[in-house]
């Protein structure tokens, strides 16, 4: 099973949202990592067929998806970034509605809905109106609708927003199990969501795919660039202005342990440390992060 993106571009006037992206997505969990505005959602929308690319194509097992029509739409499940629902719908109504949109027979969807509600611990709220549920529960309803047709390809745009830490862990486990013989593509800017479960990652920046590989492969890019050091509390402001501090932890002796990412050892007595995917993200998106922090 393979979903191939071939030279895909999307332009709006003189703005390029996705620029000549090429990627071959095979079975397993794929993380699509990038800052807000990197082009992840546009790419995902083109994969689902709701946006027509300016150039390039998407191929599913060698066949161009735009020519497959219903057969392609039947093969994937999609959770958009903004999860919508009609106010009159209960959880069951909503899932039944999407099931009929997906062309699933009544006998089939009744069983499937029960299974998914159980799996996503939504059985107790099945008769409740979606508008009365918490953000995390609404998100789980969204995930359930995407999995209704037992898709070969599961496309999830920022699926973990609104989920609490426990729900995130359950969700990761669920996806890992689900992706055994399927393609699961998760777009996120929360790196920890995909760090432990993604078979491979693709990193997007300014509409381009700038890196593809396993977490370990990608981490070689920041190998030797992540350091740990102990500093005095009074020095923190200074070091924050001269280097990219990733994490800060107060110690019992009044000092501060910092983890930072840089080409050189910016803090005296620093020790090189094992890089994580989050470090790579901060390294690649240092400009965006700096802008966000008002540097």
């Amino acid at each position, binding site marked *: 099973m393979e979903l191939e993106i071939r030279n895909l571009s999307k332009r709006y006037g003189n703005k390029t949202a996705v620029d000549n992206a090429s990627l071959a997505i095979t079975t397993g969990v794929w993380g699509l990592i990038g800052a807000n505005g990197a082009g992840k*959602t546009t790419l995902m929308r083109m994969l689902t067929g*709701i946006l027509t690319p300016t150039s390039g194509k998407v191929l599913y097992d060698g066949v161009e998806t735009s020519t497959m029509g219903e057969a392609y739409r039947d093969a994937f499940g999609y959770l958009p970034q903004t*999860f919508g629902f009609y106010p009159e719908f209960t959880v069951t109504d909503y899932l039944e509605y999407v099931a009929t949109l997906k062309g699933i027979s009544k006998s089939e969807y009744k069983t499937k809905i029960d299974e998914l509600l159980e799996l996503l611990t939504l059985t107790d709220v099945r008769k409740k109106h979606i508008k009365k549920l918490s953000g995390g529960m609404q998100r789980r309803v969204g995930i359930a609708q995407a999995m209704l047709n037992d898709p070969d390809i599961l496309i999830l745009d920022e699926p973990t927003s609104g989920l609490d830490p426990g729900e995130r862990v359950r969700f990761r486990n669920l996806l890992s199990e689900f992706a055994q013989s399927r393609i699961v593509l998760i777009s996120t800017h929360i790196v920890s969501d995909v760090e432990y479960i993604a078979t491979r990652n693709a990193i997007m920046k300014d509409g381009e795919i700038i890196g593809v590989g396993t977490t370990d492969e990608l981490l070689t890019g920041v190998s030797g660039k992540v350091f740990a050091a102990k500093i005095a509390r009074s020095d923190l402001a200074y070091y924050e202005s001269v280097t990219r501090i990733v994490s800060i932890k107060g110690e019992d002796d009044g000092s501060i342990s910092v983890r930072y990412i840089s080409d050189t050892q910016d803090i005296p007595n620093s020790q090189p440390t094992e890089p994580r995917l989050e470090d790579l993200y901060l390294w690649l998106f240092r400009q965006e992060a700096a802008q966000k922090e008002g540097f």
Partner: protein
Amino acid sequence: MSKDFRQKLKNELQESIEPSEAHLDQTVKLAHTAYDSRRKLRNMSTFEMITSQFRFVARPVWLLQGIALLCLCAFMCVGMMSEQFVSKLPALVSVSAVFVSMTAFPLYGRSRRYKMREIESTTRISHPRLILAKLCVVGIGDVVCLAAIIILALGEMTAPAQIVLMFILLPFLLSCTVSLFIMNRVKEEYATYVSTGLCIGIGVVYWTMATKLQPLLTQLSIGLAIAACALLLLTLFFECRRLMRQIPSQDLQEVLIF
């Protein structure tokens, strides 16, 4: 192996081929395996897809149309007690017909309003079929409402055919066509307001015409009224087609954050 297929292969390969029976068997087996391992698509007709949506789409529309019909019936029954009812009947039914056409407004742009467009567009039914299902639901409700108005007013009509055509069908089709024309061309957030304003305008014009020019209008030939209705029906058909063909990505592109 068919002659056509053999010829096509020859043309593609640009050489003469004489495949052995064993090779052919193997190819057939491989083709069968590939065919069997593909994802099975449940057979489903467009009719089945559309009717399966009625349960979800029809509930709010028919509820609204039912309430509108009850109000109209109550209004007509009260009006029948008045001595002026017969003379005011064309004006009343024409405004009622416009009112019926307006019951579809809350349905327009509902997917977008509740952010359901992305999910609906990526399912098997597809966006045009879903629009078609909604149009069918609205159409069925409208037919029932119009039939109820005709049945209620029929006994009091002096020239039933002319009144049905000129004062029920024509204003109904006119307001439907105008509102759909607006919905298809004006931004969704303003379209409902513009359409409502125009339909109220059509209602007022019809009320005035039916009150002041009733004898003249009822004397117009039936053929002319039928031609006008047919023309509006045709325009309405094209507007419905246009609505179905609208690409959902158009408004998704607008909301992209840069």
